[in-house]
């Protein structure tokens, strides 16, 4: 099977390949010609290594993510399991919001911050919810960092999913069911704090 480009992401190209008889995905962070060579090399290598390491670690928290077959930091390439299903961005529902919240709470319980928690990074296949793209993920126990994840998904809900009313509340319901109400409230308070730091935020 010839490698076939299936997705041009923001920072990586995704190819469908054959990996010793299995259908697999090759994610390559190609150099960006507009970026300074040194900065480009550092970012691509760092993100490839982080992605592979944290994707494996995430599995221990119960979050489902693709299995990794091979990592080549010098080429900034990761070969991983192909996940079928559809992108949550294209079919977000309230019950999915709740599942997303549970997934985020599980990840945070393992002290992992995703760093790019958007609806387009989730794949749904029947009942199975798969989380992708750990390139910006890192370890942290700080409430502020967990809040950064939640603030981002809130931003995505209010920009890309206006028609799904009450999405963030349902997300938080799912999040609280795993993290506990006390923890969830503390993070939510921190989300508000981050928003207040933003430009032209209302001082309420």
């Amino acid at each position, binding site marked *: 099977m010839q490698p076939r480009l299936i997705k041009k992401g923001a920072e990586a190209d995704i190819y469908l390949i054959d990996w010793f008889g299995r259908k697999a995905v090759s994610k390559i962070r190609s150099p960006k010609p507009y970026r300074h060579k040194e900065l480009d090399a550092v970012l691509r290598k760092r993100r490839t290594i982080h992605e592979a390491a944290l994707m494996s670690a995430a599995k221990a928290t119960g979050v489902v993510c693709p299995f990794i077959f091979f990592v080549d930091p010098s080429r900034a390439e990761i070969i991983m399991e192909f996940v079928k299903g559809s992108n949550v961005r294209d079919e977000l529902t309230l019950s999915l919001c709740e599942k997303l919240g549970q997934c985020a709470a599980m990840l945070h319980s393992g002290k992992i911050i995703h760093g790019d928690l958007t609806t387009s990074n989730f794949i749904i296949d029947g009942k199975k919810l798969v989380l992708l793209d750990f390139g*910006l993920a890192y370890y942290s126990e700080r409430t502020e960092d967990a809040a950064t994840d939640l603030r981002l998904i809130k931003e995505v809900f209010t920009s890309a999913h206006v028609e799904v009313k009450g999405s963030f509340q349902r997300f938080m319901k799912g999040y609280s069911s795993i993290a506990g109400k006390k923890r969830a409230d503390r993070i939510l308070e921190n989300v508000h704090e981050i928003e207040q730091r933003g430009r*032209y935020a209302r001082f309420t």
Partner: protein
Amino acid sequence: MMLCLGIESTAHTFAISVVDSSGRIRSDVRDIYRAPEGKGIHPRDASRHHMEASSKVLHEALDSAAVTMQDIDIIGYSAGPGLGPCLRVGAVVARALAGYYEKPLVLVNHALGHIELGALLTGASDPLVLLVSGGHTMLLAFSHGRWRVFGETLDITVGQLLDQFGRSLGFASPCGGKIEEISKESSGEYLQLPYAIKGNDVSFSGLLTAAIRIASENHDRLASVCSSLQETAFAMLAEAVERALSFTGKKEAMIVGGVAANRKLGWMLRQACERHGAKLFACPTEFAGDNGAQISWTALRQYRAEKKHISIEKSYVSQSWRLDTVDVSWRRP
């Protein structure tokens, strides 16, 4: 044909412009407050400047459009976001004119003005917008009646980053042009600086602190510091644009705001857009920064779509008026 007189006074620029309903800019007169070298805008000094400049700017705007106040149909003013004392000068001038000449008064969101004028001048129809200026660093796309934020700065704007860095070296604001000029002398060496992308958002405050420190330690390599700062900050913006393009699938991108005048940023964004098959529209440099036409044109569109104006008693200014709270009825979808 309708004529609108628009008044802009959110920050350092006091501007008045006459625009007609076909989108022709009949006049655009500006007077810019210049802060002392190494200093930022002092709101009180800037507002005093605006007050003193207002009468001259008004007369020139009318004269160069070859119209009188009687020919004007509506008056628009920039009601925020911006610096309170500066905004109030624009509002006072607008109210006085509207009251004396009995013209409808329309208030305009300054950021919306950048986008509407950018769309008029570039012909972009449904773009992902990168609004980069001293007051804004935002990625927006239009949906469900409002400009929605797909990414923004979590702390300071890219304009503030460049200005505050430049001011620490004693430059006069705005410093973006000077930093770009110095960068051109760089050997191409890259000094490591913090690169902070958080999902679709960016954060520049750590970068500013690091850049100021590195500049103070490397007086002999100022060109390298400047170029490294540009490389890092603009790469972050380009990545945020790529993320938003990939997420929204938009085939147009438009860059507006004062920092849009930066050549290096335009060059990087063009390549980022090409990768996603998107066309980049850059607001012409002379209208990238704050101007009166952005207010006139937006006021016209708003007034023609909504047929509403505000009474002088109820007119106001709002220092923190976020663009994503403004209903836009004349754009589809």
